[in-house]
């Protein structure tokens, strides 16, 4: 599930009289300035139905093309984490996951890789509270409320790996993403990895990757367009998700959930299907000083001098 652009959200809200329901059944009417704010919507979706197992992951998911069966409703979401991690092992590493949502990805990573420590950070104190409630028994896993587009509360070069899954599109534009990238570069140790995937809205397919590498400190080791795999995941999950929404989600909220789930026919799905929106994953490596000097040497050297 992913966030919409403000235009889509605003349209949605004004056309149906939208009423917020939270788990404690208190109704809240969003004010007109609230509805323009992505963080408001993120906070809302993050707090809705927070104890439902099927909704513990909030990403679109990933599926290999030979996968056809959606037995476990979270299988594709776990596969997305597996893809993002690629060949990078978290074992014995100090890991930070930014925008960890409800922490289901964090739990999967901790269970499968046994890092030394794994901190999940999110802007929403509501969603971190869900993490705390559900996952506080895992000793290597902890959570913190932080705004990654402002500053990450970690010392310079103190982390081995930073993970960020399907979130940067909601950070509020290029300036915020660049500030986020600077913070990531700051907290990563040299040669540490930043593992990322997200929607790239189209004015250029790797727009987000450009913003992330703008400060010159994160080198792209690998970048893969996984749009068709994400679409395939959305396809194979669409029946289960549609039925779930019809069965469990309050009628007034169903359309919103359908949008979030990226069901076939929704704008995000169509955008990806038609090539207007792409979904990429990438591995970035934090530059070392050696990298910098090689770059300088390359600029000065003649083509016949061998590279190292």
């Amino acid at each position: 599930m992913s966030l919409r652009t403000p235009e889509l959200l605003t349209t949605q809200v004004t056309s149906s009289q939208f009423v917020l329901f939270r788990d404690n059944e208190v109704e809240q009417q969003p004010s007109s300035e609230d509805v323009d704010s992505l963080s408001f919507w993120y906070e809302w979706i993050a707090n809705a139905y927070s104890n439902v197992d099927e909704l513990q992951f909030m990403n679109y998911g990933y599926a290999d093309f030979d996968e056809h069966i959606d037995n476990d409703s979270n299988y594709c979401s776990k596969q997305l984490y597996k893809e993002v991690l690629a060949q990078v092992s978290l074992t014995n590493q100090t890991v930070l996951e930014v925008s960890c949502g409800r922490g289901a990805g964090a739990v999967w990573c901790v269970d499968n890789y046994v890092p030394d420590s794994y901190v999940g950070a999110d802007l929403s104190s509501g969603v971190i509270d869900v993490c705390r409630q559900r996952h506080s028994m895992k000793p290597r896993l902890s959570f913190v409320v932080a705004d990654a587009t402002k500053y990450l509360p970690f010392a310079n070069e103190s982390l081995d790996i930073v993970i960020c899954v399907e979130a940067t599109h909601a950070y509020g534009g290029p300036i915020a993403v660049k500030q986020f990238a600077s913070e990531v570069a700051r907290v990563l140790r040299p040669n540490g990895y930043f593992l990322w995937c997200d929607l790239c809205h189209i004015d250029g397919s790797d727009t987000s990757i450009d913003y992330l590498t703008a400060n010159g400190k994160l080198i792209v080791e690998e970048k893969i367009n996984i749009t068709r795999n994400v679409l395939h995941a959305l396809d194979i999950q669409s029946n289960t998700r549609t039925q779930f929404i019809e069965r469990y989600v309050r009628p007034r909220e169903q359309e919103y959930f359908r949008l979030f789930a990226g069901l076939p026919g929704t704008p995000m799905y169509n955008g990806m299907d038609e090539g207007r929106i792409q979904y990429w994953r990438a591995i970035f490596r934090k530059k070392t000083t050696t990298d910098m000097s090689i770059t300088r040497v390359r600029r000065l050297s003649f083509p016949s001098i061998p590279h190292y």
Partner: protein
Amino acid sequence: MLTSNILKGVTKGFPLKIKAVKVENVSVDYNRDFVARILQRIEYGALQSAVKDLGLNESLPETMSDAMQQDDEFLKLMHKVLLEYEIEEGELICPETGRKFPISKGIPNMLLQETEVS
């Protein structure tokens, strides 16, 4: 306690002072290798300050030598201090600015106000 040893404030802000209102004692399985490894990343001085801030009834040796990092007794003490004390309610305080970050239900809130971000 382990998390508080790696969090920091905005500029230099480390180590954050801990003011605890509610501390819980939890039981965590001891993993010798894990503790030995995690000690490499710990700021021992900061940990000592934290233990002192919290008024825990644990006496940590003055310094942490290489030999001690193999010693079972010491490792078990470190396991207890790092993993078995959870600060449920309290504050983390930046040593430079005095800025307080609340800890609520075990979660530190490190969000800044708009005016605080340069």
